[in-house]
């Protein structure tokens, strides 16, 4: 197991290196210029421009800029935002709990609904339930998040008035964040109604963010279950006269779980990507909205460091999934 773990960790090093290079290159490949973006429509004189380029070091060869950047990152210095002048890591730490909270709730929704939907669709293969579930899943998978979010806001918040339009908590609740997770902080605050308000603000954004992972998990569960249900050992279990619930729950589902767990792990990346649009629509102060703003401002430092930090987190989650995978299926360790 230790060898397996070390092998996985060794793979992370070149991946991090590659990602840091890709993030560094990506933001520089974008058309536009951080200094001109900073100056705004009023523009900046050529002398002042040259001075700022010198100050930020953008006139030096890319190779030197990159290795300097990596050198700083290795000491834990992710740089200072060009636009806001605040340390990138500090901004990330302030905003990440909001994204994590939203993504966690979305993932819980996706798993709790996606797995049962996939199992039932597989058991009732070809039935109206199967067709309807897979139809909805395909629709959910293809839905543009931006449009879907706005639609839910207009219907549930605007027309029915059931849910708040945007934000993390009602503006009447004001307390200093303790953990950064609004559900927990609202409970700690002891203010009546605060938790309810925080929970109600989570409903629409988490549904929107959960939509694609839910569809993917449901489809994956269905196909994994179908494959397993056709296996000899399931037929044997049935032939033994085991109750259908036992056959499905114990024999089929446990074996179908491996690809499903992998899929769930991979959804962390999807959730991070989805958070960018979801947070923008719902004015959710997380890292997705932060990255979008930074790209708009060509804030090289925030984009390259932000991407790197997000990639590190996704890799860490995938590593955990790999370990879980090895726990579920010992054969993998040997391979």
């Amino acid at each position, binding site marked *: 197991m230790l060898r397996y773990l070390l092998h996985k960790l060794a793979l992370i090093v070149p991946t991090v290196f590659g990602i840091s290079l890709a993030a560094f290159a990506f933001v520089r490949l974008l058309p536009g210029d951080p200094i001109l*973006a900073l100056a705004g429509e009023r523009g900046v004189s050529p002398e002042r421009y040259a001075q700022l380029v010198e100050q930020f070091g953008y006139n030096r060869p890319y190779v030197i800029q990159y290795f300097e950047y990596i050198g700083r990152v290795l000491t834990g210095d992710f740089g200072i935002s060009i636009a806001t002048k605040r340390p990138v890591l500090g901004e990330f730490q302030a905003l990440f709990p909001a994204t994590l909270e939203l993504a966690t709730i979305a993932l819980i929704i996706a798993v709790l609904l996606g797995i049962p939907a996939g199992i039932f669709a597989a058991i009732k293969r070809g039935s109206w339930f199967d067709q309807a579930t897979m139809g909805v899943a395909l629709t959910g998978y293809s839905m543009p998040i931006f449009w879907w979010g706005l639609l839910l806001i207009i219907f549930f*918040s605007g027309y029915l008035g059931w849910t708040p339009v945007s934000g993390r908590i009602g503006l009447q609740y004001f307390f200093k964040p303790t953990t950064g997770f609004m559900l927990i902080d609202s409970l700690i605050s002891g203010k009546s109604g605060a938790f309810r308000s925080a929970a109600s603000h989570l409903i629409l954004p988490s549904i929107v963010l959960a939509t694609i992972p839910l569809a993917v998990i449901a489809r994956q569960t269905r196909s994994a279950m179908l494959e397993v249900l056709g296996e000899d050992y399931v037929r044997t279990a049935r032939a033994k006269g085991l109750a259908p619930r036992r056959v499905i729950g114990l024999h089929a589902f446990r074996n179908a779980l491996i690809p499903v767990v992998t899929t769930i792990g991979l959804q962390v990346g999807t959730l991070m990507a989805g958070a960018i649009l979801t947070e923008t629509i719902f004015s959710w102060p997380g890292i997705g909205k932060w990255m979008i703003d930074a790209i708009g401002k060509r804030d090289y430092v925030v984009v390259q460091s932000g991407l790197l930090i997000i990639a590190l987190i996704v890799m860490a989650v995938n590593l955990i999934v790999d370990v879980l995978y090895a726990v579920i299926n010992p054969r993998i360790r040997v391979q």
Partner: protein
Amino acid sequence: MKKKLTFAAALLAASVIGGMANAKQLVYCSEASPAGFDPSPWSGGNDFDASSRTIYSRLVEFEHGKTTISPGLAESWTVSDDGLEYTFKLRPGVKFQTTDYFTPTRDLNADDVIFSFERQWKKENPWFSYLEGTGWEYFAGMGFPDLLKEIVKVDDLTVKFVLNKPEVAFLPDLGMDFASIVSKEYADQLDKAGTRQQFTQKPIGTGPFQFVDYQVDAVIRYAAWDGYYGGRQKIDDLIFAITTDPAVRAQKLKAGECDIMSYPAPADIAGLQADTNLKVDEQEGLNIGYLAYNTTLPPFDKVEVRKALNMAVNKKAIIDAVYQGAGQPAVNPIPPTMWSYNKDIKDDPYDPEAAKKMLADAGVKDLSMKIWAMPVSRPYNPNAQRVAEMIQADYAAVGVKAEIVSYEWTEYRERGKQKDRDGAFQLGWTGDNGDPDNFLFLLGCDAVGQSNYAIWCNQEFEGLLKKGKATTDVAERTKIYEEAQVVFKREAPWLTIAHSKVFMPMNKKVSGFVMDPLGIHRFDGVDVTE
């Protein structure tokens, strides 16, 4: 003593926070997060709304809803005959805000005024570079480094600005956001503590509201400043709910989650107007959207070609389709709400037949050109791509083939400045200070290669521009600028497209909000009926 004051500040903060439930509050759905709360390093309207107009004051202030100036922190001033010395008498007893992080020991004085400018001006000032890569772009962009000779403290309440050359717009310039007055005492305190960064994160000013809290990208909270020299505000708490999407802002306003919002999308305005709980204020924007020809390249170096192309475009159709009626066809390079606007100038008529003939007379056959379209929506042009398509169709009707080009926003502007730029370039301008020169300088010879996208340097126009800048008498300047507009219209370096209207939707319970011609959102004087 210090302990007592800290305790008092803590009590104030506690009462601010604790009293929130019963307080009279105004929630403003703003469009973007501020970069910081120092009023001078940044140049975005949303930065100014969140800092300079709420927390700070200036020596002179723009009158509410107007572009004329009135006394602010300076209660009076005198200007020397040669226009080189401005002496300001400061208002006595002006208090800086007392918060849980700063308790002032003295009132505003000349040191604060000098510090506010020198930190943006003098490289040796330790605060010049307190933020990494700070540009002080507005200060530099308004030409202050060359304009200022020295700032002298005459006494505690008298400060004298000595200029290198006369500048008629100097007083309005001092009403601008970058000229907000900050506390030197607070800066010194942070210097000692080694926490300079706090200056932009926890601001201290003399304005109508004091800073309470900022949750990054989400909510900014302010409380009315009891010691404000202009009197305490009617609302207790001002809250900015940062909501970037205009459609979501509109939904929040409808749902009662905010009381007032900025920049509605043109498509949402009718729906907001139809809501019985809301009212939608509107105002002519102090702006211009235009299409600049490259007047140095043939055939656009010929006036008759530029005129013919202007006459080929149906501006009314553009206003109806793109501005959705929220604008008016522009005739002059300055908007009609600005003083010195020349009402007598007639616009080039929309006449495709005459345009076709003029092009033929000028020897232009089978003209192919580019139309540049901005990749972003701006107040003066909500959809440049659509405008370009409509102009393209109009041009086709007179036999001109046009190709639409666009680039990323900063690159777009950089490429547009090139002297050999191919084609006609869409852009616009929103006024900074209500002075006509703040629009007409866009067409000056000095602005070629920078903000003069027509690359147009006309000596007659330039002479009038220079004369206008050196004249202090408003009546005389009005005549000069009226004449400059005649020259502009005759020479047609731009197709003047539109002046847009600006809308401000709000709940009917909001009163006292005055729309600002400079596009700033001010909440002093606003009330909310419960």
